[in-house]
């Protein structure tokens, strides 16, 4: 962005200064300001360095804009507010904030000025600054800088109720404030201003000057001249142009002709422009060559010419902000350095601009110091906070005051007058007058120092040139010198009066001229006998100027003979304010004496003219005849002549000599008066200096005051917050109904909540009493002990205490904690009581029910386990542990799936998942694997336990061991299967028996008998097996069973053998074989006759690790055996079939002595099933 042109692309920077009471103003300001405004605000406040500011929070609550505490390097962005932190100085460079910490000492701290100055420099015509409420004058200087650079300045209106007088007043008083507005209206004004800047940028050239202005300048100058009597024709065009442009900006007028119309309509606007133009530019040692010449030609000379007691007096007229005055002071100071008995230097700085004078007095200048060499800078300046303060010794040399070259009398008895670049603004007449004044003010040997474009050529008689180039001139004694014409304002006034009075009557004028011939000669004198008017005519015959300095003093120029009489007459007249008439002798020389009547009369009884009086002379001789009667007799004595005359003359001579003495005495007195006057003047100057010091002190006081106010206002805010918090706290304590009592270290009551009165009989008046003195309803007497212990250990003590009887009263939970102050110092204790009666009851009930539950669970004949949703065990009863073969601890590290048989888990997990989705509880049979690898069958009844929220939170499993049941079931199934198989097998056998019986049967009867007998044999063995549940049968039993039908005579057969347990298969086969053997024995063998014997014997041996059974059937004593041709069924069964069914060898021999059958079989280790 070019410095002159604002196009809205970057934020409009608005600096806002305020202090005490600023809070309210800030709030009000930002409430009105929309959030999207394209501006960046920088808030600068007087803050206590040691005090944290709440400003950011407080303003943040009022606006939607971003509010931040400023930091070094913060780039200003639109729609944001940057707040100065405490103890910091803020400046701006190229749109970026710069912050320095800490802030300078209080007396030098002007944060608002500092920021505004940098703002003016950085943003030029686009800067805006606002001074809100606050005490002191901080901001005024910065405001001026902003305005000088073409920026807009605003101040809070005085009538605004938010304002504290002080800063806005001071700012408004500078006249540098463009607009004084109530704070609420500022937002709208700023928005309009921004829009204007954007709009006006279209009319500007690259230097930021309007291109449509030049032609109108003459008209503007004319208007100014008319309105304020000043001609700005000699001003540089661009200077005036920029001032006009700025005024237009303030008024938001975009066309020049409109502005002219406005000026013509409103004289105030012309005045404002005039003020604007007054702003001057100055710097240290401007034009260094000239100052060097000044040092060489003037300063050194002056110092050399003075004696130690003397004073060098310098007047810097139009000193603006004081740079020139200080520059000259430095020159003198440097020149007198090292001199013994150097003359005292007194420099008067004056300017018409009172704001400039304030700044000059402050002696503070912004860095960098233009025109000051580094040596001077380090020697004569003290750097404070980016600004430079003039060293005390330089500052003390200078006195500043407001003074108008035009209307105020000049200083006097000066040695040097410096008036640079001031007269260039004046017209020639004014220049002449001013030069005359300077001449008057300077004494002999005085010098005049002018600006480079100024000179004294038209008044060459007053000054002689010392250095033409550097414009140094020396005072000249000159006849043309006259008293200064002042008050010069009178000229202006008379001009106006003349214009007002219109025409003078020419007739009257002529008449007066004629009448004057007949009127007496007169002079008008003032109180000091200075002649202010001479009449025309023959006034000369009464005057006789004394030798010496030309004077208008009446008694210096009056003829000596008239002086005494007139002196007393004038005094009388002035004192009495009435006309005095006296006669006296006018000695006109040459021995001629003429009587004169003198009339002395004040010009007016009252008013300013009453100090003037008219002294009129009338020759008595010319009117002797007409006025003879009125003539006093004493006067007539003069013409009596004769002897008396000589005596009178002698007397007169005596009188004259005494008069001369009196006059001499008077002159001496007058001299003394003059010297006293000088003393007074110096006293006055001293007083003025003291006054300035006082003013500085006052500023400091104001700044301190302001900080105090800021702190106070923040304290008030904090206090309000504390009150609110306190209220909250009280309500909190009341609403929780937690009885609370605060005790100090000696158990004295500091405060308590209402609930406390129910426990201890407390009243407000009990505050401060030791709590132990009070009657307590608590069944607890260890309070004192506990409090002491808390104070020592600083740990909380918690106890349950009771009110009333055991069981009937209530139970309270008492907590004693140390009371810590904000600074964490322990100062007593806080005792709180919670009523936990109902909790206690619930707790007891709960404990009871829990005990009952755990008893049930522990005694239950089922395993009970609780798991979470992931299946992890959370609880299990002893039986469950026993069932699973694991301890509780082991189980808690496991999940249900970890102990479930993998083959059962898929089925289990589906149900488990459903349950988690709020499915129904379920029963499942599953196997658990124990750590030793054994498996146990369980029936698991699983259900979910609803948590507090109503959703299932845990899973409960009730587990019953069904291993035996399962085993029994499978056994039964097996049996059933076996039974069916066995029946089928048996049927197959029966079928075979039926089939095999038939071939040998000769008749149906015989078949039936044979079949039934075989069937019965089978049935018998079956019976035997059944008694042992088909586990087997003893061989003896099998043999005996088959032999039983032939038991008619026990002596005919013997059975001999050890006990051998046969499996079912072997038992059946052997049973059938024995049956066939015994049947054949009964039919054809040993048992068929009346004699015969059958022996059945067996042995059990071991062969190759297997049991070998050897059974021998031996018949004897029967009929001789004849081997039948055809094998019977029985024989076939034994010799062919038995070997198939049993694993062994069968020998079946038909010996003549009887049948002998040897059966050798291996018994199976495990009972065969088939």
């Amino acid at each position, binding site marked *: 962005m070019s410095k002159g042109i604002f196009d809205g692309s970057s934020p409009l920077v608005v600096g806002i200064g305020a202090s005490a009471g600023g809070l309210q103003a800030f709030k009000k300001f930002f409430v009105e300001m929309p959030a999207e405004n394209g501006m960046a605000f920088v808030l600068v406040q007087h803050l206590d360095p040691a005090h944290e500011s709440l400003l950011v929070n407080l303003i943040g609550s009022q606006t939607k804009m971003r509010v931040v505490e400023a930091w070094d390097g913060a780039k200003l962005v639109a729609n944001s507010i940057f707040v100065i932190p405490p103890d910091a100085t803020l400046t701006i460079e190229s749109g970026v904030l710069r912050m320095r910490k800490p802030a300078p000492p209080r007396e030098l701290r002007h944060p608002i000025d500092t920021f505004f100055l940098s703002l003016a420099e950085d943003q030029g015509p686009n800067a805006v600054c606002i001074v809100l409420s606050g005490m002191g004058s901080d901001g005024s200087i910065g405001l001026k800088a902003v305005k000088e650079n073409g920026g807009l300045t605003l101040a809070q209106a005085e009538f605004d109720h938010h304002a504290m007088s002080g800063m806005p007043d001071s700012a408004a008083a500078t006249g540098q404030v463009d607009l004084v507005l109530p704070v609420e209206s500022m937002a709208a004004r700023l928005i309009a201003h921004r829009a204007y800047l954007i709009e006006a940028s279209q009319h500007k050239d690259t230097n930021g000057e309007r291109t449509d202005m030049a032609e109108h300048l003459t008209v503007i100058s004319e208007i100014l001249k008319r309105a304020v009597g000043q001609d700005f024709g000699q001003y540089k065009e661009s200077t005036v142009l920029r001032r006009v442009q700025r005024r237009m900006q303030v008024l938001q007028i975009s066309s020049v002709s409109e502005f002219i119309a406005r000026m013509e309509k409103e004289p105030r606007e012309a005045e404002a422009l005039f003020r604007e133009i007054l702003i001057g530019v100055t710097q240290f040692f401007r034009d260094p060559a000239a100052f060097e010449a000044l040092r060489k030609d003037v300063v050194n000379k002056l110092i050399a010419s003075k004696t130690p007691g003397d004073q060098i007096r310098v007047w810097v007229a139009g000193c603006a902000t004081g740079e020139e005055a200080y520059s000259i002071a430095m020159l003198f100071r440097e020149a007198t350095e090292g001199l013994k008995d150097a003359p005292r230097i007194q420099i008067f700085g004056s300017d018409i601009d009172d704001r400039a004078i304030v700044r000059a007095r402050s002696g503070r200048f912004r860095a960098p110091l233009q025109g000051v060499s580094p040596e001077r800078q380090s020697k004569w300046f003290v750097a404070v906070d980016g600004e430079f303060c003039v060293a005390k010794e330089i500052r003390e040399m200078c006195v500043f005051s407001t003074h108008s070259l035009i209307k105020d009398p000049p200083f006097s008895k000066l040695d040097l007058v410096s008036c640079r670049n001031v007269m260039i603004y004046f017209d020639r007449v004014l220049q002449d007058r001013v030069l005359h004044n300077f001449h008057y003010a300077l004494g002999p040997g005085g010098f005049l120092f002018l600006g480079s474009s100024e000179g004294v050529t038209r008044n060459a008689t007053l000054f002689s040139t010392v250095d033409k180039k550097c414009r140094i001139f020396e005072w000249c004694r000159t006849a043309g010198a006259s008293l200064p014409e002042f008050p010069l304002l009178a000229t202006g006034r008379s001009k106006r009066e003349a214009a007002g009075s219109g025409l003078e009557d020419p007739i009257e004028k002529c008449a007066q001229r004629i009448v004057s011939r007949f009127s007496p000669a007169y002079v008008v004198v003032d109180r000091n006998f200075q002649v202010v008017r001479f009449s025309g005519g023959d006034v000369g015959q009464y005057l006789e100027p004394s030798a010496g300095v030309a004077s208008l003093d009446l008694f210096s120029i009056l003829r000596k003979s008239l002086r005494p009489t007139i002196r007393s007459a004038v005094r009388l007249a002035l004192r009495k304010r009435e006309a005095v008439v006296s006669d006296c002798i006018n000695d006109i020389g040459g021995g001629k004496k003429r009587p004169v009547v003198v009339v002395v009369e004040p010009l007016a009884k009252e008013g300013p003219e009453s100090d003037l009086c008219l002294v009129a002379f009338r020759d008595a001789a010319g009117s002797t005849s007409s006025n003879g009667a009125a003539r006093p007799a004493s006067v007539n004595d003069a013409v009596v002549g004769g002897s008396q005359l000589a005596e009178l003359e002698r007397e007169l001579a005596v009188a004259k000599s005494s008069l001369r003495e009196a006059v001499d005495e008077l002159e001496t007195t007058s001299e003394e008066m003059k010297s006293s006057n000088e003393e007074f003047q110096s006293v006055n100057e001293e007083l003025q200096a003291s006054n300035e010091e006082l003013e500085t002190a006052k500023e400091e006081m104001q700044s301190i005051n302001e900080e105090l106010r800021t702190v106070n206002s923040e304290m008030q805010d904090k206090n309000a917050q504390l009150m609110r918090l306190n209220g909250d706290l009280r309500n909190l304590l009341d609403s929780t109904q937690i009885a609370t009592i605060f005790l100090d270290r000696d158990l004295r009551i500091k405060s308590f909540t209402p609930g406390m009165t129910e426990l201890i009989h407390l009243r407000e008046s009990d505050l401060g009493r030791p709590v132990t003195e009070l009657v307590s309803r608590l069944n607890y007497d260890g309070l004192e002990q506990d409090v002491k212990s808390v104070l020592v250990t600083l740990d909380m003590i918690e106890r349950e205490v009771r009110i009333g009887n055991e069981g009937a009263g209530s139970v309270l939970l008492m907590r004693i904690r140390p009371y810590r102050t904000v600074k964490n110092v322990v100062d007593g204790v806080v005792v709180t009581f919670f009523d936990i009666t109902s909790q206690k009851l619930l707790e007891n009930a709960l404990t009871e029910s829990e005990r009952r539950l755990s008893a049930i669970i522990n005694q239950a004949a089922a395993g009970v386990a609780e798991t979470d949703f992931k299946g992890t065990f959370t609880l299990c009863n002893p039986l469950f542990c026993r069932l699973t073969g694991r301890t509780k601890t082991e189980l808690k590290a496991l999940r249900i799936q970890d102990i479930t048989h993998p083959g059962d888990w898929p089925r289990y997990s589906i149900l488990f998942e459903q349950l988690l989705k709020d499915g129904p509880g379920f029963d499942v049979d599953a196997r658990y694997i124990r750590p030793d690898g054994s498996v146990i069958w369980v029936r698991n009844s699983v259900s979910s336990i609803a948590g507090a929220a109503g959703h299932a939170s845990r899973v409960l499993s009730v587990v019953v061991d069904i291993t035996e049941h399962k085993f029994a079931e499978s056994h039964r199934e097996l049996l059933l*299967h076996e039974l069916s*198989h*066995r029946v*089928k*097998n048996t*049927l*197959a*056998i029966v*079928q*075979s*028996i039926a*089939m*095999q019986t038939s071939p040998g049967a000769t008749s149906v009867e015989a078949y039936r008998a044979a079949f039934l007998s075989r069937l019965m044999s089978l049935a018998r063995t079956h019976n035997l097996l059944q008694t042992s549940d088909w586990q087997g049968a003893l061989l003896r039993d099998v043999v005996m069973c088959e032999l039983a039908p032939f038991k008619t005579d026990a002596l005919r057969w013997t059975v001999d053998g050890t006990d051998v347990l046969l499996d079912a*298969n072997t038992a059946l*086969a052997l049973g*059938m074989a024995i049956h066939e053997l015994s049947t054949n024995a009964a039919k054809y063998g040993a048992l068929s006759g009346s004699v015969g014997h059958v022996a059945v014997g067996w042995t059990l041996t071991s062969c190759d690790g297997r049991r070998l059974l050897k059974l021998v059937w031996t018949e004897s004593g029967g009929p001789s055996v004849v081997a039948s041709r055809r094998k019977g069924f029985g024989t*076939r*069964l034994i010799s*062919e*079939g*038995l*070997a*198939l*069914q*049993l*694993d062994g060898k069968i020998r079946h021999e038909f010996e003549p002595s009887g049948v002998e059958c040897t059966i050798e079989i291996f018994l*199976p280790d*495990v009972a*065969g*099933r*088939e």
Partner: protein
Amino acid sequence: MTTKTQAADLISLTGRHLLLVEDEMMIALDLADVVGGFGCTFAMAGRVAKAISLIANAGFDAAVLDVNLAGEKVYAVADELNRLGIPLIFTTGYGEDGVLAQYRHHVIVSKPYTRIDLYGALVRVLGPARV
């Protein structure tokens, strides 16, 4: 249909040499009578080891195997027969379930069976019926 005409229709099994494996002596004897009645010659075994020892060079045309032999399964015999390409019939009191799945493609005769059952089964394994 009479037994005679039926018999006339039947294909002859005469001369066929069969392996009979059955440990239940009563049933074994009956079985021997039945196949003898069909005109077949045969060898008998009541245990697996015996049966396998018989197979080697006997030149059996077919075998009738009882599945369970005194607690021992007959499948080793069946495998040996299969290896030699000798057809076989299972007999069992357990029905089809009594035979392992991988052997169920063989003809299975459920106990108790009639001679006709056995005949049909033998015809199925020995060759197509001739009318």
